[in-house]
Structure formats: C-alpha cells, structure tokens
C-alpha cells in the first residue's frame, strides 16, 4: 500500500515532465519552420488570389497585370490574372468569379464590366467569405472590402477642362462612350460634360454608346461626325474608344478640325498625339491599381488593417507638348521586361 502511494506522484511528475519535453520539441520543430520572415513562411502554401480584369490585351490591362504580378511577387502570393476575351463579356467574368469561389481563392480583385450584372456573382463570393477588392470600375455590391480606382468623375473633368482651355470658341461635343452599364464610363462622361458645360460655350453634346471594341468605336465616331459635322470636340472614354475615334478622325481627314480628348494610352494613341488626331490623353495609373489591389488583398488575408476602404489612384494629362518629358515617358511608355 505504502509502496504504491510513493510511486504514484513520482510517475505523475515524470509524465508531466515528458509531456512538457515533447511539447517543447514540437514547438522547436514548428518554430524552426516559422522562424523565417513572413514572406518566406508562406512558401509551404501560398495564398491563392485571383485578379479578374476586363481585358488582357489592352495596354491598360497589361499594365494592371504587371503591377499585380509585381505585388504578388513581393508578398509571395499565388496570383492568377484572368480576363474575358471581350470587354463586353460580363457573363465570362461571372463564371470566372464562380471559378475563383470553387478554387477557394483567398481574395478576388475585380473590375466590373457591368455595374449591375456582375453584382450577383460578387455577392456570392462575399457570402463564401472571400474578400473582394474592386479596381478600375465599380460593381453594385455593399460587401466590397476596398475600392481602388481613378476618381473617374475627376478624370472626366480633367479632360473637359483641357477641352475648354484649348478651344476658346463654341464647343460642339461628341461623347464616344462604351457600355452604358459600366460605372466608370458614365462617371467620366458626367465629369467631362459638367466641365465643358460650366464654360457656357457649349452648343451641343451628342453622346453615342458603342460596344467596347475599336471597330465599334470607329463606326460610331464616323457616324457621329457624319451626322453632326459641326462637332469639334470628342471625348473618347477609354483606350479602345480612343483608337476607334482616332482612326475615324484620321480617315475622315478632320484631324485639324476635331480635337479628341481620350482616356488611357497605348503606343498608337500616343503616336496620334504627335500626328494630331488626339489632342490630349488622360492617363490613369493602371500599374498602381494592380499593385495596390494585390497589396490590399495581402493585407486582408493576413488581417492587417487597411488605411481606407477607398483608394484614389492618380491621373495625368498627356499632350503632344509634354509627352516626352522624362516623368511622362516613364508613365506612358511601358518598359519591356
């Protein structure tokens, strides 16, 4: 009896000691793995995120993509950039969102082709617990974690103010807009129209909504100019609209009579600055959008605080006179890797 009583506390002590020892060694093993910095730690299982753009061919979206890639490399995320073949195809975007939900993405960075039609799929993602970050153009959803975009209204105003400044006579304005359901196109149009209207020298504003393709823009612009030859100012509200309008003006031979204020840049539209079809370009900061989008995703995944749920990216006005300034060069002409 006495013997037994003596053994019990001793064995308890030994058990506790062994338990502590094993816990400690377990910690050491896992601790060693956790020692390297947070970026390297994730190498075992990188967080998978998806960036869904509107297009993967335009210079704008290529720049978004390279910004996103740069951030993904820096924050060691497994990033996938996808975009529909056409900038009109919101259905394809919706299926990409659903694929991202199925693929258990940790975050979705999204640019909506259609403000309303993409909302349902985005809400599904948010309900599935995937944070959504909107870049470039907004979607009609309450649950979006962060919006990173150009202040499109201000960008429109910027173009409008330049138009007013450059033309001291009566302005007859043609607006070549794309999808009527795209939020940022509408905001730019609003900003542009407000700015020119404030001058009090506007005779008329004619708006066309075409498909978001170069060909459609070309046809719309040609048609518009044929119908209203008095138009002397055109606002082309995105990259493809700029090209379509530029070509139309060039082919109609009215480059000197018509000033085009366009959005975004690529090598062709920059060339048109020199040749005179396009008067000015409002250049956004797509690289920053891509980069900040992924950086924000990283912060959300790792429960780090966000500075704000809305980040405005910068815009720059580029004209023939400043296009070769060092800073503008760096912004407008992509560096081929």
């Amino acid at each position: 009896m006495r013997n037994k009583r003596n053994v019990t506390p001793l064995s308890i002590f030994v058990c506790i000691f062994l338990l502590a020892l094993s816990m400690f060694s377990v910690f050491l093993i896992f601790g060693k793995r956790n020692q390297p910095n947070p970026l390297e730690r994730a190498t075992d299982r990188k967080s998978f995120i998806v960036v869904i753009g509107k297009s993967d061919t335009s210079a704008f979206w290529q720049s978004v993509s390279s910004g996103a890639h740069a951030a993904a490399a820096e924050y060691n995320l497994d990033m996938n950039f996808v975009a529909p073949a056409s900038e009109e195809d919101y259905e394809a975007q919706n299926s990409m969102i659903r694929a991202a939900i199925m693929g258990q993405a940790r975050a979705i960075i999204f640019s909506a082709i259609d403000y309303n039609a993409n909302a349902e799929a985005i809400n599904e993602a948010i309900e599935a617990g995937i944070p959504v970050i909107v870049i470039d153009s907004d979607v009609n959803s309450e649950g979006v974690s962060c919006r990173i975009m150009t202040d499109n209204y201000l960008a429109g105003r910027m173009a409008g103010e330049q138009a007013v400044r450059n033309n001291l006579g009566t302005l007859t304005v043609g607006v070549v807009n794309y999808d009527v359901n795209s939020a940022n196109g509408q905001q730019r149009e609003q900003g542009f129209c407000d700015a020119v209207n404030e001058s009090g020298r506007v005779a008329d504003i004619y708006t066309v909504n075409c498909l978001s393709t170069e060909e459609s823009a070309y046809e719309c612009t040609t048609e518009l100019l044929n119908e209203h030859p008095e138009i002397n100012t055109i606002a082309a509200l995105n990259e493809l609209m700029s090209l379509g309008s530029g070509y139309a003006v060039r082919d109609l031979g009215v480059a000197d009579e018509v000033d085009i204020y366009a959005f975004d840049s690529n090598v062709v539209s920059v060339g048109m600055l020199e040749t005179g079809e396009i008067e000015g370009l409002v250049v956004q900061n797509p690289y920053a959008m891509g980069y900040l989008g992924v950086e924000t995703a990283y912060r959300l995944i790792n429960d780090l605080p966000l500075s704000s749920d809305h980040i405005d990216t910068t815009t720059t006005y580029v004209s023939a006179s400043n296009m070769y300034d060092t800073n503008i060069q760096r912004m407008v002409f992509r560096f081929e890797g």
Partner: protein
Amino acid sequence: MFKRLKRADFSLSKAMTMVVVIMVFTAVIIALVIFNTVFRDSLEEAAITSADQSVEQVSVTINNYTSDMIEIMDKLYTNSIEDPSSQEELFRNLIDIRNDVVMVATYDVHNNNTGIWSNYPTKEMIYTNLSLFPVPDSGEVINISAPHVVSVLENYYPWVVTITKTADETFSNAAKIAIDVRFSAIARYIDEVGIGRHGYCFIMDGDGNIIYHPQQQLIYAGLKREMPDLMTLSDGSHMIDGVIYTVKTLDNCDWKIIGVAYLDETVNERVSAMISASVLIFIIVVLMTFVSSSLFSYLFTKPAKKLAHAMKDFEDNAADFVFEPIEGSVEVNNLSDSFEHLVKRIQRLMEEVKNEETTLRKTELKALQAQINPHFLYNTLDSISWMCEEGKNEEAVAMVNALAKLFRISISRGHEIIPIEKEVQHAECYLQIQKYRYTNHFDYEFEVEESCKEYLCNKITLQPLIENALYHGLNMIDEGHIAIRIFEDGEDVIMEVEDNGSGMTEEQVEELFVNDGTDHHGIGVKNVNDRIKIYFGDKYGIKVRSELDEGTCVTIRIPKITEERKYEK
C-alpha cells in the same frame, strides 16, 4: 529578529520556484545579450560583405557591357573614317547582328539627321528625336545618355540608352554617330540581382536621377520612394537606419550602382526569433517550476508543515495529543512514522514517570508512617521509662539519644536519598534500641568499607531488613547474630544483612516481594525494593538468599552515587 522574519517569509517551494525562475531568466537574458552583440556584429559584417560583392559584380557586368558598346562605337568610327563607303553596310550589319541595337543614326555638324538605320519602320514625320541630344563638343568623346524612349519609330517606343560619338572631322556627311542600345538587357540583369532576402540594386546618375530601378514602376506610380540624398554618399557601404547602402561609381560613365540591403530582415528577424523562443522556453520553465514546486509542496512542504503543526500541538499538550499519520514523500512518511513512534514512547514514559512518582510518594509515606509506628515508639518509651525507674540513667540517656538520632535520620529534612554513613548510623541506632529492649537476645556487627560511606542510598533501607531479621529470623533463637556488611562491587555498592535465624522457604521469599507490608510489622522488603528500583533503575534492588534453619542473607545492590553526582542519573 530580522533573521526570524526572513525565515518565516519563505517556504521551501516558493524559494525553489524563485531560484529556478531567476536562474532561467538570467540565463536567457545573458544568452540574448551575447547573441545580440556577438552575432549581430558578425551578421552585419556578412551582410555588408555580401552587398559589396553583389554591387561589385553588377558594376563589373555593366562596365563590361558599356565598354563593349564603346568598343563597337570605336570600330564604327575608325572604319567609317578609313572606308566611308562601307559605312552604310557596317550599320546595317550591326543592327542585324546585335539585336540590342535598336537604331543607328548619324548627324551633321548642325545636328541635322543624315541617316537612320533600324530594323523598325520610322515615322513618316519626325516631330521629336530624343536620341539626339547636345553633347559636349570636345573631340573624340563618347557620351552615354540616360535611358529614354526612341521617339522616331512608328508605333514603337523601346527604352534605350544612346551612345554618341562626336568626330572632330566629318566623315561622309556625318559629324556624330549615335547608337541606341536597348536598355532592357541591363534592366533584366539588374532585376535579377538580389542582396539578401529583400535587397536589390539600382542605377543612379551623378545628379541623383534614377537611371534604372527594379521597382521603377512603383516609384513612377508614386508607391515607393528611395532615400533622396543617396547621391551624396561616397563609394563604399553606408548604414542608414538599419539599411545598408552600397555605392559604386562606374568607371566609364557617371552612373552609380547602389545596392540596398536590409539588415533588419537578416539580423532582427533572427534576434526576434531568438527572443520569442527564449520567452517560450522561459514560460515553459516557469510553468514546469510551478508544477514541480506544487508537486514538491504536495509531497513535502505541506506534510512538513502539518508535521510541524503536530509537533507544536504535541509541545502544547503532550498528554492528550493524538497523532494522525501524515502522508507525503518517503522521507516525510519516515519522519511521520518516527514522530508517531516518538510521541507514543514519550507518552508512555510520561505515564510511567507519573505512576512511579505516585508509587514513590506512597512508599515514602508508608516508610515514614512505619517509623512513627506507635507500637515501636510506645515500647521504646516504655523501656526508657523503665530504665529511669531502675536508675539506669546512663542507659536511658543513650536510649533517648539513639531514638532521637533514629528519627532525625528517618526524616532527614524530607530527603529520600541520604549518605550510606547516615543510613548505617540509623541502622545502628535502631539496633541499639532493640538491643536494650531485647537485652542480649542477639548481637550484631557492622562491616562497612570506609570508601562506601560517601555514596548515597535510600533512607530507611537497612532498618526494615534488620527489623525483619529480628522479628522473623531471630524470633526463636537465643543467640541471634546479625551481620551488616557494606562493600564495593565494581561500579556498585552492596549492602548485606545476614542473620542466622530460622530462614525461609522459597515460597516465603517470593512472598516477601509480593506482600506490600501492610501488616502491623511496619514496611516490608517490597517497599524497600520498590524505592530502590524507582530511584536507581531495574537492575538494582534486593535479593534474598535463605535456607531453613540456616539463616537469611538479604543483599541490596545500588549504584555508586555521590552527593555531587546525584542528579546525573
């Protein structure tokens, strides 16, 4: 006082916990300090060395690249001078062979373009030519421009650096040759360079403008900024806010290679990992210490406290104390068992002492009572009175003196132990009185060793034995003889009372030690024996040797105890 307070404040388990915690804490702190000082220095050094090496390598590569280009330029130049007719073919070949040469252009002395050779279509109308820029007009100087886009090609704007060579003489209507070399080759190389985990290299010109930066897109997009005053740094490594900047100026142009390495990530991370590991170790050790100390306390401290309480209780009330065994470690159990044993033993001894005390008082009282036996007194006084009547005054006086001495020694001021000398006198007095009374019915002799007289014995030891001998032994005998002998026997003293009386059977002898002498003949052998044993211990006492019709010898054994050493036993 202070010591006592201190002693009371710390329990063993608390002290143990404190000691272990302090020891581990100190060890961890020392380890951290050593790690921080020794390893931080060496890691810093290693980081700087690796940054130096990387930057050196980059500068060598870029130097090679630019020298290569300058060499090509020199060849073009000399060939053009020697054989102007081959110039056209030379340029064509160059742009065909070297994919990184985008364009070759020549200009006349007025900077008018005199020819462009390129694999890409040129613009119909050239508004701006960024590849043409003013160079110092100083002979055969080769000039390398900052990166810029080529602005003369149709829908193609590659980033290039322009290498320009100005001639002091015209060669086939060209005073200046410019080669536009793709910058992407250098850029791609710079992109690949890594220093440490996060470090990188970038190129800056002498005015602090960034020529190429791996993250230039971020810088241009306003998302990143380099330190503004880097151009003021001299060549070599500089440590600014935990960032190592390594600067190296290229040999053949005013570009600087700047390596950026973060010390934080290499050193601070390890230190913080070490700190967190240490903190964890510390916590685990503290937890383990608490567990072990509580176990220790459960096994030892608490039982020890209980035991201490029990001891205190025992101290306060020894007689009624009931000990409940305390359970703990083996040591505590042993202590508990020993204490239990001790308690029982002490309680038994206390009981014994109490009983003995009682017995002693009783027996002493009896002995005294026996001395003041009224019969003896009455008879003696009767004898004295008779002597007086007969005119035997001297005898009467001796008798009275003997009686007085007898009582004086009997009482002995209340002492139980008296010197043997006194006891012998006592016995003598008694015998004297009895001899007067039983005139010459018996005689007696004393053989007392002088050395024995100082030793102590119980009072009224010899007298009862002599009384027994007189009344029972010599009762029927006319010539009775009593011998009293006192002598040493090793460590003991032997007192013998021998008579030549009727003797006793063994049963009678045994009865002597049972009968407690309550009969009318005063106190018995038992009383004397009991008193000796109570005072001196069980190994001492009375032995009786007797044979019928031969006589009886009563032997008393007591230890040698002197007045001075009375209380030692």
